[in-house]
């Protein structure tokens, strides 16, 4: 029953929406702080639909990093979606090309978190349910961005500082989740190496964030993958 599946997907998206809205409001606010318009904010959320990469982009854009460097950094950050999509792609019924393309657009960390859990319990997930889940999450993300971009100015300064920190809180929580899922040693070595290299490049060599970030990320990735698997 496609309609019931679709509505079920929308309902399953509620926890995601609750998480997205405050983060999206913060994003809308930060985009405005970078000197961009509410329309700029809304467009980026509607087009990209990738929170962490959008925060990264507006942060680097705000300090004047060149667009190719921002793009490279954002794409590398989103490489993780390859792995999430490959789990979902193996667990949906056969579908026309345009439907698969549309479903792929909505695969975010949180959508994967919910869909991946359902897949591990009862394979496969119906297209209507996946569509509901993705549309629910997408509406919250774009809607929250618009609210933040339009109403951001009325937010008191203390809350603004706190919301500016929300992004790092989100990243830290995502990292903690990755460490928990493991492989623990590889993930920890990757994150710590990237952070250390970033500090050396930024403070030691006075490199700009656009140059330092991709180098730090690749160095962390290489270090993490070089840690041998624990022998059982």
């Amino acid at each position, binding site marked *: 029953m496609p309609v019931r599946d679709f509505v079920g997907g929308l309902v399953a998206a509620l926890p995601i929406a609750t998480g997205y809205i405050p983060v999206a409001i913060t994003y809308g606010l930060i985009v405005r702080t970078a000197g961009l318009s509410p329309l700029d904010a809304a467009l980026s959320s509607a087009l990209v639909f990738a929170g962490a990469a959008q925060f990264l982009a507006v942060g680097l854009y705000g300090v004047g990093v060149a667009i190719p460097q921002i793009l490279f950094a954002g794409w590398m950050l989103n490489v993780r979606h390859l792995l999430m999509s490959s789990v979902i792609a193996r667990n949906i019924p056969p579908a026309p090309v345009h439907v698969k393309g549309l479903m792929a657009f909505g695969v975010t960390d949180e959508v994967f978190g919910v869909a991946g859990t359902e897949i591990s319990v009862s394979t496969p997930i119906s297209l209507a349910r996946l569509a509901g889940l993705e549309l629910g999450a997408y509406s919250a993300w774009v809607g929250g961005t618009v609210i933040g971009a339009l109403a951001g100015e009325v937010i008191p300064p203390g809350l603004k500082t706190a919301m500016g920190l929300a992004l790092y*809180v989100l990243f830290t929580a995502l990292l903690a989740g990755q460490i928990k899922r493991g492989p623990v040693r590889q993930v920890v070595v990757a994150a710590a190496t990237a952070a250390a290299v970033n500090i050396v490049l930024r403070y030691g060599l006075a490199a700009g964030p656009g140059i330092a970030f991709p180098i730090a990320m690749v160095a962390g990735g290489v270090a993490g993958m070089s840690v041998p698997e624990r022998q059982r």
Partner: protein
Amino acid sequence: MTITPQWLLLSLGLMAGTWILRALPFFTSALDRLPPRAQRFLSVVPAAALGALVIPDSFSAAPLPIVTAALVLAFVMTVKRVPLTITVLTVVLLVWLALSIVPTLT
């Protein structure tokens, strides 16, 4: 209301790259045949990205003791299986509270 051309270009570029990364597995199973080293790199690169995103830029987002407390709390809450939403909301509210109590910190 205006559209900033540079920003639009950046958004379109991010959209294209992100969509390709998300869509590839729907159209090819070639990824399953990547050499193990490449797969291991792909599986740890997001953690590396997050590490470099948090450090050192978070240090200047608010007074350092507050940043440290906020990030440690977020880490512990996630490890204790608190949902992402509640973690982010709680930490942000606590930071706001701390900044309100000690306004000189802002």
